[in-house]
Protein backbone atom coordinates (compact mmCIF):
# COMPACT_ATOMS: atom_id res chain seq x y z
CA UNK A 1 0.00 0.00 0.00
CA UNK A 2 2.84 2.30 0.97
CA UNK A 3 4.70 1.51 -2.29
CA UNK A 4 1.53 2.05 -4.30
CA UNK A 5 1.08 5.43 -2.71
CA UNK A 6 4.61 6.48 -3.73
CA UNK A 7 3.90 5.41 -7.31
CA UNK A 8 0.60 7.25 -7.22
CA UNK A 9 2.31 10.29 -5.81
CA UNK A 10 4.90 10.14 -8.60
CA UNK A 11 2.12 9.87 -11.18
CA UNK A 12 0.31 12.83 -9.67
CA UNK A 13 3.50 14.91 -9.62
CA UNK A 14 4.19 13.94 -13.24
CA UNK A 15 0.64 14.82 -14.27
CA UNK A 16 0.88 18.16 -12.55
CA UNK A 17 4.21 18.80 -14.30
CA UNK A 18 2.65 17.85 -17.65
CA UNK A 19 -0.37 20.05 -17.05
CA UNK A 20 1.94 22.84 -16.02
CA UNK A 21 3.93 22.54 -19.22
CA UNK A 22 0.92 22.19 -21.47
CA UNK A 23 -1.38 24.75 -19.95
CA UNK A 24 1.00 27.36 -18.62
CA UNK A 25 -0.43 30.75 -19.48
CA UNK A 26 1.87 32.55 -21.86
CA UNK A 27 3.23 35.84 -20.61
CA UNK A 28 3.01 37.33 -24.08
CA UNK A 29 1.38 35.84 -27.16
CA UNK A 30 0.86 37.83 -30.28
CA UNK A 31 -0.13 36.95 -33.79
CA UNK A 32 0.59 38.95 -36.87
CA UNK A 33 -1.95 38.37 -39.60
CA UNK A 34 -0.82 39.13 -43.17
CA UNK A 35 2.83 38.92 -42.11
CA UNK A 36 4.10 40.25 -45.44
CA UNK A 37 2.67 43.46 -46.86
CA UNK A 38 3.61 44.56 -50.36
CA UNK A 39 3.10 48.10 -51.51
CA UNK A 40 3.96 50.01 -54.65
CA UNK A 41 4.06 53.78 -54.97
CA UNK A 42 5.23 56.52 -57.26
CA UNK A 43 7.75 59.09 -56.03
CA UNK A 44 5.75 61.87 -54.39
CA UNK A 45 2.78 59.61 -53.71
CA UNK A 46 1.21 58.72 -50.38
CA UNK A 47 0.49 55.01 -50.29
CA UNK A 48 -1.77 53.45 -47.70
CA UNK A 49 -1.50 50.09 -46.04
CA UNK A 50 -2.75 48.15 -43.06
CA UNK A 51 -1.22 45.97 -40.36
CA UNK A 52 -3.11 43.30 -38.44
CA UNK A 53 -2.28 42.25 -34.88
CA UNK A 54 -4.10 39.71 -32.72
CA UNK A 55 -3.85 39.24 -28.97
CA UNK A 56 -3.79 35.47 -28.38
CA UNK A 57 -3.85 35.75 -24.62
CA UNK A 58 -6.63 35.97 -22.07
CA UNK A 59 -5.32 39.27 -20.76
CA UNK A 60 -5.04 42.79 -22.10
CA UNK A 61 -1.86 43.69 -23.97
CA UNK A 62 -0.24 47.10 -24.32
CA UNK A 63 1.88 47.08 -27.41
CA UNK A 64 4.32 49.50 -28.91
CA UNK A 65 5.43 49.61 -32.54
CA UNK A 66 8.95 49.90 -33.83
CA UNK A 67 10.03 50.11 -37.47
CA UNK A 68 13.37 48.61 -38.41
CA UNK A 69 15.14 47.92 -41.67
CA UNK A 70 15.83 44.34 -42.67
CA UNK A 71 17.92 42.58 -45.26
CA UNK A 72 18.49 39.02 -46.46
CA UNK A 73 20.02 37.00 -43.66
CA UNK A 74 20.53 33.73 -45.45
CA UNK A 75 19.93 32.04 -48.77
CA UNK A 76 16.60 30.60 -47.68
CA UNK A 77 14.60 33.74 -47.07
CA UNK A 78 15.41 34.46 -43.44
CA UNK A 79 15.38 38.19 -42.71
CA UNK A 80 17.97 39.93 -40.54
CA UNK A 81 16.68 42.92 -38.61
CA UNK A 82 19.06 45.83 -38.39
CA UNK A 83 19.41 48.80 -36.15
CA UNK A 84 18.22 51.90 -38.04
CA UNK A 85 21.08 53.94 -39.45
CA UNK A 86 21.33 57.27 -41.19
CA UNK A 87 21.13 55.64 -44.63
CA UNK A 88 17.75 54.17 -43.67
CA UNK A 89 15.97 57.51 -43.89
CA UNK A 90 13.15 55.78 -45.78
CA UNK A 91 11.94 54.48 -42.42
CA UNK A 92 10.70 58.01 -41.76
CA UNK A 93 8.35 57.64 -44.73
CA UNK A 94 6.29 55.17 -42.67
CA UNK A 95 3.62 56.83 -40.57
CA UNK A 96 1.53 54.53 -38.41
CA UNK A 97 -1.88 55.77 -37.35
CA UNK A 98 -0.92 54.58 -33.86
CA UNK A 99 2.43 53.54 -32.53
CA UNK A 100 0.96 52.17 -29.31
CA UNK A 101 -1.93 49.84 -29.05
CA UNK A 102 -4.11 48.31 -26.36
CA UNK A 103 -5.66 45.00 -27.17
CA UNK A 104 -8.18 43.20 -25.01
CA UNK A 105 -8.02 39.44 -24.61
CA UNK A 106 -8.57 37.64 -27.94
CA UNK A 107 -8.94 40.93 -29.76
CA UNK A 108 -7.47 41.87 -33.11
CA UNK A 109 -6.71 45.28 -34.51
CA UNK A 110 -6.26 46.69 -37.96
CA UNK A 111 -3.75 49.52 -37.90
CA UNK A 112 -3.74 51.74 -40.98
CA UNK A 113 -0.48 53.34 -42.01
CA UNK A 114 0.76 55.61 -44.73
CA UNK A 115 3.99 55.66 -46.65
CA UNK A 116 4.75 59.24 -47.62
CA UNK A 117 7.16 58.86 -50.49
CA UNK A 118 9.23 61.95 -51.27
CA UNK A 119 9.46 63.15 -54.87
CA UNK A 120 13.20 62.52 -54.75
CA UNK A 121 12.79 58.84 -53.85
CA UNK A 122 14.99 56.60 -55.98
CA UNK A 123 13.01 53.85 -57.75
CA UNK A 124 13.65 50.40 -56.32
CA UNK A 125 12.86 48.25 -53.33
CA UNK A 126 12.75 49.38 -49.71
CA UNK A 127 12.36 46.87 -46.91
CA UNK A 128 11.13 47.42 -43.39
CA UNK A 129 9.72 45.35 -40.56
CA UNK A 130 7.07 46.76 -38.23
CA UNK A 131 7.44 45.03 -34.87
CA UNK A 132 4.81 45.01 -32.13
CA UNK A 133 6.21 44.46 -28.69
CA UNK A 134 4.59 44.35 -25.28
CA UNK A 135 5.78 47.02 -22.90
CA UNK A 136 7.64 44.97 -20.33
CA UNK A 137 7.17 45.59 -16.67
CA UNK A 138 10.36 46.49 -14.89
CA UNK A 139 11.84 43.58 -13.00
CA UNK A 140 12.31 44.44 -9.37
CA UNK A 141 13.54 41.01 -8.30
CA UNK A 142 17.27 40.59 -7.71
CA UNK A 143 18.96 38.53 -10.46
CA UNK A 144 15.81 38.61 -12.58
CA UNK A 145 16.27 39.14 -16.28
CA UNK A 146 13.47 40.40 -18.49
CA UNK A 147 12.32 38.24 -21.39
CA UNK A 148 10.33 39.97 -24.13
CA UNK A 149 8.77 38.95 -27.40
CA UNK A 150 7.98 40.91 -30.53
CA UNK A 151 6.28 39.91 -33.74
CA UNK A 152 6.64 41.75 -37.00
CA UNK A 153 5.14 42.41 -40.41
CA UNK A 154 7.61 42.53 -43.29
CA UNK A 155 6.88 45.42 -45.64
CA UNK A 156 8.14 45.25 -49.22
CA UNK A 157 7.87 48.75 -50.68
CA UNK A 158 8.39 49.21 -54.39
CA UNK A 159 9.01 52.73 -55.62
CA UNK A 160 8.00 52.75 -59.24
CA UNK A 161 10.16 54.18 -61.96
CA UNK A 162 13.24 52.95 -63.70
CA UNK A 163 14.36 50.36 -61.19
CA UNK A 164 16.73 47.62 -62.19
CA UNK A 165 15.56 44.02 -62.46
CA UNK A 166 18.46 41.67 -63.12
CA UNK A 167 19.74 38.34 -61.89
CA UNK A 168 22.56 35.89 -62.46
CA UNK A 169 22.84 32.20 -61.70
CA UNK A 170 25.68 31.72 -59.23
CA UNK A 171 25.47 27.93 -59.10
CA UNK A 172 23.56 25.11 -60.69
CA UNK A 173 24.48 21.51 -60.04
CA UNK A 174 23.53 18.24 -58.43
CA UNK A 175 23.98 18.15 -54.66
CA UNK A 176 26.58 15.39 -54.71
CA UNK A 177 28.48 17.04 -57.59
CA UNK A 178 29.48 13.78 -59.30
CA UNK A 179 30.03 13.09 -62.98
CA UNK A 180 28.24 9.74 -63.00
CA UNK A 181 24.98 8.69 -61.34
CA UNK A 182 23.57 5.20 -61.11
CA UNK A 183 20.10 5.76 -59.70
CA UNK A 184 17.27 8.21 -59.20
CA UNK A 185 16.36 10.55 -57.59
CA UNK A 186 18.51 13.43 -58.76
CA UNK A 187 18.94 16.25 -56.22
CA UNK A 188 19.40 19.57 -58.01
CA UNK A 189 20.20 22.93 -56.49
CA UNK A 190 20.60 26.39 -57.94
CA UNK A 191 21.61 29.72 -56.43
CA UNK A 192 20.22 32.84 -58.05
CA UNK A 193 21.62 36.26 -57.23
CA UNK A 194 19.45 39.34 -57.52
CA UNK A 195 21.82 41.94 -58.97
CA UNK A 196 19.15 44.62 -59.36
CA UNK A 197 17.59 47.01 -56.86
CA UNK A 198 14.10 45.51 -56.56
CA UNK A 199 12.98 42.15 -55.16
CA UNK A 200 12.26 39.35 -57.60
CA UNK A 201 9.87 36.41 -57.52
CA UNK A 202 11.48 34.02 -59.99
CA UNK A 203 10.00 30.91 -61.50
CA UNK A 204 12.38 28.14 -62.42
CA UNK A 205 12.14 25.04 -64.56
CA UNK A 206 14.68 22.30 -65.17
CA UNK A 207 14.80 20.45 -68.49
CA UNK A 208 16.71 17.16 -68.69
CA UNK A 209 17.61 15.90 -72.16
CA UNK A 210 19.15 12.52 -73.09
CA UNK A 211 21.30 11.68 -76.11
CA UNK A 212 18.18 10.69 -78.09
CA UNK A 213 16.77 14.19 -77.63
CA UNK A 214 14.04 13.01 -75.25
CA UNK A 215 13.27 15.58 -72.54
CA UNK A 216 11.68 15.82 -69.11
CA UNK A 217 10.68 19.18 -67.60
CA UNK A 218 9.85 19.95 -64.00
CA UNK A 219 9.43 22.95 -61.73
CA UNK A 220 12.17 24.12 -59.41
CA UNK A 221 10.78 27.40 -58.10
CA UNK A 222 7.20 28.61 -58.22
CA UNK A 223 7.48 32.36 -57.57
CA UNK A 224 6.52 32.05 -53.91
CA UNK A 225 10.01 32.89 -52.72
CA UNK A 226 11.38 36.40 -53.04
CA UNK A 227 14.99 37.41 -53.58
CA UNK A 228 15.91 40.76 -52.10
CA UNK A 229 18.28 43.05 -54.03
CA UNK A 230 21.96 42.16 -53.82
CA UNK A 231 21.28 38.80 -52.21
CA UNK A 232 21.31 35.15 -53.21
CA UNK A 233 18.52 32.62 -52.85
CA UNK A 234 19.06 28.90 -52.96
CA UNK A 235 16.51 26.62 -54.63
CA UNK A 236 16.46 22.86 -54.35
CA UNK A 237 14.42 20.15 -55.97
CA UNK A 238 14.43 16.36 -56.02
CA UNK A 239 13.57 14.69 -59.31
CA UNK A 240 11.27 12.79 -59.61
CA UNK A 241 10.59 13.08 -55.86
CA UNK A 242 11.41 11.32 -52.62
CA UNK A 243 11.93 7.64 -53.47
CA UNK A 244 13.37 6.55 -50.15
CA UNK A 245 10.47 4.20 -49.41
CA UNK A 246 10.23 2.71 -52.93
CA UNK A 247 11.24 -0.93 -53.53
CA UNK A 248 13.60 -2.28 -56.20
CA UNK A 249 10.97 -2.89 -58.87
CA UNK A 250 9.22 0.44 -58.29
CA UNK A 251 12.52 2.26 -58.62
CA UNK A 252 13.36 0.33 -61.78
CA UNK A 253 9.94 1.25 -63.14
CA UNK A 254 10.56 4.94 -62.39
CA UNK A 255 13.94 4.76 -64.09
CA UNK A 256 12.40 3.00 -67.10
CA UNK A 257 9.66 5.64 -67.40
CA UNK A 258 12.22 8.44 -67.35
CA UNK A 259 14.33 6.81 -70.07
CA UNK A 260 17.50 8.32 -68.70
CA UNK A 261 20.61 6.61 -69.99
CA UNK A 262 24.03 7.78 -71.07
CA UNK A 263 25.08 11.40 -71.19
CA UNK A 264 22.40 13.80 -69.98
CA UNK A 265 22.16 17.58 -69.99
CA UNK A 266 20.15 19.53 -67.42
CA UNK A 267 19.21 23.12 -68.08
CA UNK A 268 17.74 25.43 -65.44
CA UNK A 269 15.76 28.43 -66.68
CA UNK A 270 14.85 31.19 -64.25
CA UNK A 271 12.21 33.65 -65.43
CA UNK A 272 11.23 36.84 -63.65
CA UNK A 273 9.73 40.27 -64.30
CA UNK A 274 6.38 38.76 -65.35
CA UNK A 275 8.29 36.19 -67.41
CA UNK A 276 9.85 38.83 -69.65
CA UNK A 277 13.40 38.19 -68.50
CA UNK A 278 15.23 34.92 -68.03
CA UNK A 279 18.62 33.46 -67.24
CA UNK A 280 19.70 29.86 -67.76
CA UNK A 281 22.57 27.50 -67.19
CA UNK A 282 23.29 23.97 -68.40
CA UNK A 283 25.25 21.13 -66.85
CA UNK A 284 25.96 17.63 -68.15
CA UNK A 285 26.52 14.31 -66.40
CA UNK A 286 26.31 10.58 -67.06
CA UNK A 287 23.49 8.37 -65.89
CA UNK A 288 23.52 4.56 -65.85
CA UNK A 289 20.51 3.14 -63.98
CA UNK A 290 21.95 0.02 -62.30
CA UNK A 291 18.55 -1.48 -61.53
CA UNK A 292 17.52 -1.37 -65.16
CA UNK A 293 20.93 -2.73 -66.10
CA UNK A 294 20.44 -5.69 -63.72
CA UNK A 295 16.94 -6.38 -65.04
CA UNK A 296 18.03 -5.99 -68.65
CA UNK A 297 21.02 -8.30 -68.11
CA UNK A 298 18.76 -10.85 -66.40
CA UNK A 299 16.34 -10.80 -69.30
CA UNK A 300 19.23 -11.20 -71.75
CA UNK A 301 20.68 -14.16 -69.86
CA UNK A 302 17.23 -15.75 -69.54
CA UNK A 303 16.58 -15.30 -73.26
CA UNK A 304 19.96 -16.75 -74.06
CA UNK A 305 19.32 -19.76 -71.79
CA UNK A 306 15.84 -20.32 -73.23
CA UNK A 307 17.32 -20.14 -76.72
CA UNK A 308 19.96 -22.72 -75.77
CA UNK A 309 17.39 -25.00 -74.14
CA UNK A 310 15.12 -24.69 -77.12
CA UNK A 311 17.98 -25.57 -79.41
CA UNK A 312 18.85 -28.63 -77.33
CA UNK A 313 15.22 -29.76 -77.27
CA UNK A 314 14.93 -29.37 -81.02
CA UNK A 315 18.19 -31.29 -81.51
CA UNK A 316 16.92 -34.05 -79.22
CA UNK A 317 13.63 -34.21 -81.10
CA UNK A 318 15.50 -34.44 -84.41
CA UNK A 319 17.71 -37.26 -83.07
CA UNK A 320 14.69 -39.16 -81.80
CA UNK A 321 12.90 -38.78 -85.13
CA UNK A 322 15.96 -40.05 -87.01
CA UNK A 323 16.13 -43.13 -84.77
CA UNK A 324 12.49 -43.91 -85.49
Amino acid sequence: MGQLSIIDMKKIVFLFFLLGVLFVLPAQAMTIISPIVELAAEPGQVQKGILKVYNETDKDLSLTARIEPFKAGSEDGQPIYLLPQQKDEYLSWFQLSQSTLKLSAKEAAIIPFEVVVPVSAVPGGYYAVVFWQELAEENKEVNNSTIQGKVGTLVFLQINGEFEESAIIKDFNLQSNKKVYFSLPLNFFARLENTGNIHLYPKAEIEIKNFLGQTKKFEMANSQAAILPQSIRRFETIYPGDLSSADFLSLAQVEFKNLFFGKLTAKVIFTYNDQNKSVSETISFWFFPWRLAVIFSGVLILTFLLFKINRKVNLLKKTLNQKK
Partner: protein
Amino acid sequence: MVLTKKLISYLLLISIFCLSPINHIFARMESTNFIIYGDVFSSGGREDSTSANFGIQDTIGEGLALSSTSTSSNFGIKTGFREMYADSFVTLSLGSGSLDLGALSTTETKLGSHTMTVETDSLNGFTVTLSGNTLTSGINTITAIGSIAMAPLIGTKQFGINLVANTTPAVGADPAGLAPIGSAADQYRETNKFAFLSGATVATSSAPINSTIYTVSYIANISSDTINGSYATTLTYGATVNY
Protein backbone atom coordinates in the same frame (compact mmCIF):
# COMPACT_ATOMS: atom_id res chain seq x y z
CA MET B 1 -38.39 57.02 -25.07
CA VAL B 2 -37.50 53.61 -26.55
CA LEU B 3 -36.91 55.25 -29.92
CA THR B 4 -34.54 57.76 -28.32
CA LYS B 5 -32.58 54.98 -26.63
CA LYS B 6 -32.31 53.12 -29.93
CA LEU B 7 -31.20 56.30 -31.68
CA ILE B 8 -28.52 56.93 -29.03
CA SER B 9 -27.33 53.32 -29.32
CA TYR B 10 -27.06 53.60 -33.09
CA LEU B 11 -25.21 56.91 -32.87
CA LEU B 12 -22.86 55.44 -30.27
CA LEU B 13 -22.14 52.42 -32.47
CA ILE B 14 -21.58 54.56 -35.54
CA SER B 15 -19.27 56.90 -33.66
CA ILE B 16 -17.26 53.95 -32.29
CA PHE B 17 -16.82 52.49 -35.76
CA CYS B 18 -16.19 55.74 -37.60
CA LEU B 19 -14.12 57.70 -35.13
CA SER B 20 -11.89 54.99 -33.76
CA PRO B 21 -8.43 55.37 -35.31
CA ILE B 22 -8.03 51.61 -35.39
CA ASN B 23 -10.64 49.02 -36.25
CA HIS B 24 -11.10 46.28 -33.68
CA ILE B 25 -12.39 42.96 -34.87
CA PHE B 26 -12.07 39.37 -33.91
CA ALA B 27 -9.53 37.98 -36.33
CA ARG B 28 -11.01 34.54 -36.59
CA MET B 29 -14.47 33.38 -35.67
CA GLU B 30 -14.73 29.70 -34.91
CA SER B 31 -16.82 27.09 -33.22
CA THR B 32 -16.50 23.33 -32.96
CA ASN B 33 -18.01 23.02 -36.44
CA PHE B 34 -16.60 25.91 -38.49
CA ILE B 35 -13.90 28.52 -38.89
CA ILE B 36 -14.34 31.83 -40.68
CA TYR B 37 -10.81 32.91 -41.55
CA GLY B 38 -11.66 36.22 -43.14
CA ASP B 39 -14.03 38.01 -40.81
CA VAL B 40 -14.71 41.28 -42.59
CA PHE B 41 -14.91 44.79 -41.27
CA SER B 42 -15.84 46.84 -44.27
CA SER B 43 -16.66 50.48 -44.19
CA GLY B 44 -18.44 51.20 -47.42
CA GLY B 45 -20.53 49.90 -50.27
CA ARG B 46 -24.02 50.08 -51.71
CA GLU B 47 -26.92 47.73 -52.07
CA ASP B 48 -28.15 49.38 -55.25
CA SER B 49 -25.26 50.35 -57.53
CA THR B 50 -26.69 50.42 -61.03
CA SER B 51 -26.03 51.55 -64.56
CA ALA B 52 -28.05 51.18 -67.74
CA ASN B 53 -26.71 47.66 -68.14
CA PHE B 54 -26.17 46.23 -64.67
CA GLY B 55 -27.06 46.32 -61.03
CA ILE B 56 -24.77 45.22 -58.24
CA GLN B 57 -24.70 45.00 -54.47
CA ASP B 58 -21.12 46.12 -53.89
CA THR B 59 -18.73 46.77 -51.06
CA ILE B 60 -15.32 48.32 -50.88
CA GLY B 61 -12.36 46.22 -49.81
CA GLU B 62 -11.72 45.23 -46.23
CA GLY B 63 -8.85 47.66 -45.91
CA LEU B 64 -7.30 50.37 -47.97
CA ALA B 65 -4.53 48.05 -49.04
CA LEU B 66 -4.49 44.35 -48.44
CA SER B 67 -1.46 42.23 -47.92
CA SER B 68 -1.85 40.23 -51.08
CA THR B 69 -1.10 42.57 -53.92
CA SER B 70 -0.99 41.81 -57.61
CA THR B 71 0.91 44.27 -59.71
CA SER B 72 2.32 44.69 -63.17
CA SER B 73 3.59 47.70 -65.04
CA ASN B 74 0.00 48.58 -65.92
CA PHE B 75 -2.08 47.69 -62.88
CA GLY B 76 -2.15 47.05 -59.18
CA ILE B 77 -4.89 45.23 -57.31
CA LYS B 78 -4.96 45.79 -53.58
CA THR B 79 -8.54 45.95 -52.56
CA GLY B 80 -11.18 43.44 -53.44
CA PHE B 81 -14.67 42.44 -52.55
CA ARG B 82 -13.54 40.54 -49.50
CA GLU B 83 -10.63 38.43 -48.42
CA MET B 84 -11.96 35.02 -49.24
CA TYR B 85 -8.77 33.15 -48.41
CA ALA B 86 -7.23 32.15 -45.13
CA ASP B 87 -4.91 34.98 -44.24
CA SER B 88 -1.39 33.97 -43.38
CA PHE B 89 -0.16 34.42 -39.82
CA VAL B 90 2.77 34.03 -37.44
CA THR B 91 2.38 33.66 -33.68
CA LEU B 92 4.98 34.03 -30.94
CA SER B 93 4.27 33.21 -27.33
CA LEU B 94 6.69 33.31 -24.41
CA GLY B 95 6.09 31.13 -21.37
CA SER B 96 7.59 33.67 -19.02
CA GLY B 97 8.43 37.33 -18.96
CA SER B 98 11.34 36.91 -16.58
CA LEU B 99 14.25 34.63 -15.80
CA ASP B 100 15.91 34.09 -12.45
CA LEU B 101 19.29 32.39 -12.55
CA GLY B 102 19.85 33.07 -8.88
CA ALA B 103 23.18 34.16 -7.42
CA LEU B 104 25.92 33.09 -9.82
CA SER B 105 28.51 30.70 -8.44
CA THR B 106 32.10 29.60 -9.07
CA THR B 107 31.26 26.01 -8.10
CA GLU B 108 28.19 25.25 -10.18
CA THR B 109 26.59 26.25 -13.46
CA LYS B 110 23.43 28.24 -12.88
CA LEU B 111 20.50 27.19 -15.03
CA GLY B 112 17.19 28.59 -16.14
CA SER B 113 14.61 27.98 -18.83
CA HIS B 114 11.26 29.03 -20.23
CA THR B 115 9.11 27.98 -23.14
CA MET B 116 8.66 29.80 -26.41
CA THR B 117 5.88 28.75 -28.76
CA VAL B 118 5.85 29.58 -32.45
CA GLU B 119 3.33 28.76 -35.16
CA THR B 120 2.91 29.87 -38.77
CA ASP B 121 1.14 28.82 -41.93
CA SER B 122 3.49 30.91 -44.05
CA LEU B 123 4.80 28.99 -47.07
CA ASN B 124 8.43 29.87 -46.39
CA GLY B 125 8.32 29.33 -42.62
CA PHE B 126 9.51 31.69 -39.92
CA THR B 127 12.58 33.06 -38.16
CA VAL B 128 13.04 33.96 -34.50
CA THR B 129 16.04 36.08 -33.62
CA LEU B 130 17.49 36.93 -30.25
CA SER B 131 18.57 40.43 -29.36
CA GLY B 132 19.95 41.83 -26.14
CA ASN B 133 23.07 42.06 -24.06
CA THR B 134 24.80 39.57 -21.86
CA LEU B 135 24.32 39.52 -18.06
CA THR B 136 25.53 42.65 -16.35
CA SER B 137 25.71 44.08 -12.88
CA GLY B 138 26.63 47.72 -13.03
CA ILE B 139 29.84 47.89 -15.04
CA ASN B 140 30.60 44.18 -14.52
CA THR B 141 29.64 41.76 -17.26
CA ILE B 142 29.52 38.01 -17.75
CA THR B 143 31.17 37.14 -21.05
CA ALA B 144 28.67 36.01 -23.70
CA ILE B 145 29.73 32.71 -25.26
CA GLY B 146 29.39 34.15 -28.78
CA SER B 147 28.36 32.65 -32.10
CA ILE B 148 30.07 29.25 -31.67
CA ALA B 149 28.41 26.95 -29.15
CA MET B 150 30.52 25.82 -26.21
CA ALA B 151 30.06 23.48 -23.27
CA PRO B 152 29.57 25.10 -19.86
CA LEU B 153 32.80 25.41 -17.91
CA ILE B 154 32.52 25.95 -14.17
CA GLY B 155 34.82 28.72 -12.97
CA THR B 156 34.76 30.57 -16.31
CA LYS B 157 32.66 33.62 -17.11
CA GLN B 158 29.98 32.37 -19.47
CA PHE B 159 26.46 33.19 -20.51
CA GLY B 160 24.65 31.24 -23.21
CA ILE B 161 21.44 29.65 -24.36
CA ASN B 162 20.25 26.69 -26.40
CA LEU B 163 16.91 25.27 -27.50
CA VAL B 164 17.37 21.52 -27.16
CA ALA B 165 17.46 18.85 -24.47
CA ASN B 166 20.74 18.63 -22.56
CA THR B 167 22.14 16.02 -20.21
CA THR B 168 25.16 17.88 -18.84
CA PRO B 169 23.78 20.08 -17.43
CA ALA B 170 20.33 18.51 -17.25
CA VAL B 171 18.20 21.29 -18.63
CA GLY B 172 15.95 21.95 -21.59
CA ALA B 173 13.88 19.92 -24.03
CA ASP B 174 13.85 19.35 -27.74
CA PRO B 175 11.34 21.32 -29.82
CA ALA B 176 7.98 19.60 -29.43
CA GLY B 177 4.66 19.55 -31.25
CA LEU B 178 2.64 17.74 -33.86
CA ALA B 179 4.73 17.41 -37.04
CA PRO B 180 5.66 19.41 -38.99
CA ILE B 181 7.40 21.52 -36.39
CA GLY B 182 10.17 24.12 -36.39
CA SER B 183 13.76 23.48 -35.42
CA ALA B 184 16.41 25.23 -33.39
CA ALA B 185 18.95 27.11 -35.46
CA ASP B 186 22.51 26.04 -36.13
CA GLN B 187 24.57 26.74 -32.98
CA TYR B 188 21.52 26.67 -30.72
CA ARG B 189 20.70 23.01 -31.33
CA GLU B 190 23.95 21.51 -30.05
CA THR B 191 23.26 19.22 -27.12
CA ASN B 192 25.16 20.28 -23.97
CA LYS B 193 26.55 23.33 -25.78
CA PHE B 194 25.36 26.91 -25.54
CA ALA B 195 25.85 30.09 -27.54
CA PHE B 196 24.85 33.74 -27.26
CA LEU B 197 25.10 36.33 -29.98
CA SER B 198 22.75 39.28 -30.21
CA GLY B 199 21.00 39.32 -33.59
CA ALA B 200 21.42 35.59 -34.15
CA THR B 201 18.65 33.38 -35.46
CA VAL B 202 17.73 30.89 -32.75
CA ALA B 203 14.72 29.11 -34.23
CA THR B 204 13.48 28.66 -37.76
CA SER B 205 11.55 26.65 -40.31
CA SER B 206 11.45 26.80 -44.08
CA ALA B 207 7.82 25.70 -44.41
CA PRO B 208 4.52 26.02 -42.54
CA ILE B 209 4.62 24.45 -39.08
CA ASN B 210 2.21 23.46 -36.37
CA SER B 211 2.53 25.00 -32.95
CA THR B 212 6.09 24.27 -31.83
CA ILE B 213 7.06 24.47 -28.18
CA TYR B 214 10.70 25.41 -27.73
CA THR B 215 12.38 25.28 -24.37
CA VAL B 216 14.96 28.05 -24.16
CA SER B 217 17.64 27.08 -21.64
CA TYR B 218 20.13 29.47 -20.10
CA ILE B 219 23.46 28.76 -18.43
CA ALA B 220 25.70 31.13 -16.52
CA ASN B 221 29.09 30.65 -14.89
CA ILE B 222 31.44 33.05 -13.18
CA SER B 223 35.12 32.98 -12.41
CA SER B 224 36.75 33.48 -9.03
CA ASP B 225 37.59 37.09 -9.87
CA THR B 226 34.01 37.94 -10.82
CA ILE B 227 32.55 40.56 -8.56
CA ASN B 228 29.48 39.37 -6.70
CA GLY B 229 26.29 41.12 -7.57
CA SER B 230 22.87 40.85 -9.15
CA TYR B 231 23.46 39.94 -12.75
CA ALA B 232 20.57 40.46 -15.12
CA THR B 233 19.73 41.47 -18.68
CA THR B 234 16.84 42.17 -21.04
CA LEU B 235 16.43 39.79 -23.93
CA THR B 236 14.01 40.11 -26.83
CA TYR B 237 12.87 37.33 -29.12
CA GLY B 238 11.60 38.67 -32.44
CA ALA B 239 9.53 36.59 -34.87
CA THR B 240 8.64 37.20 -38.49
CA VAL B 241 7.86 34.94 -41.40
CA ASN B 242 10.45 34.20 -44.03
CA TYR B 243 9.88 35.79 -47.43
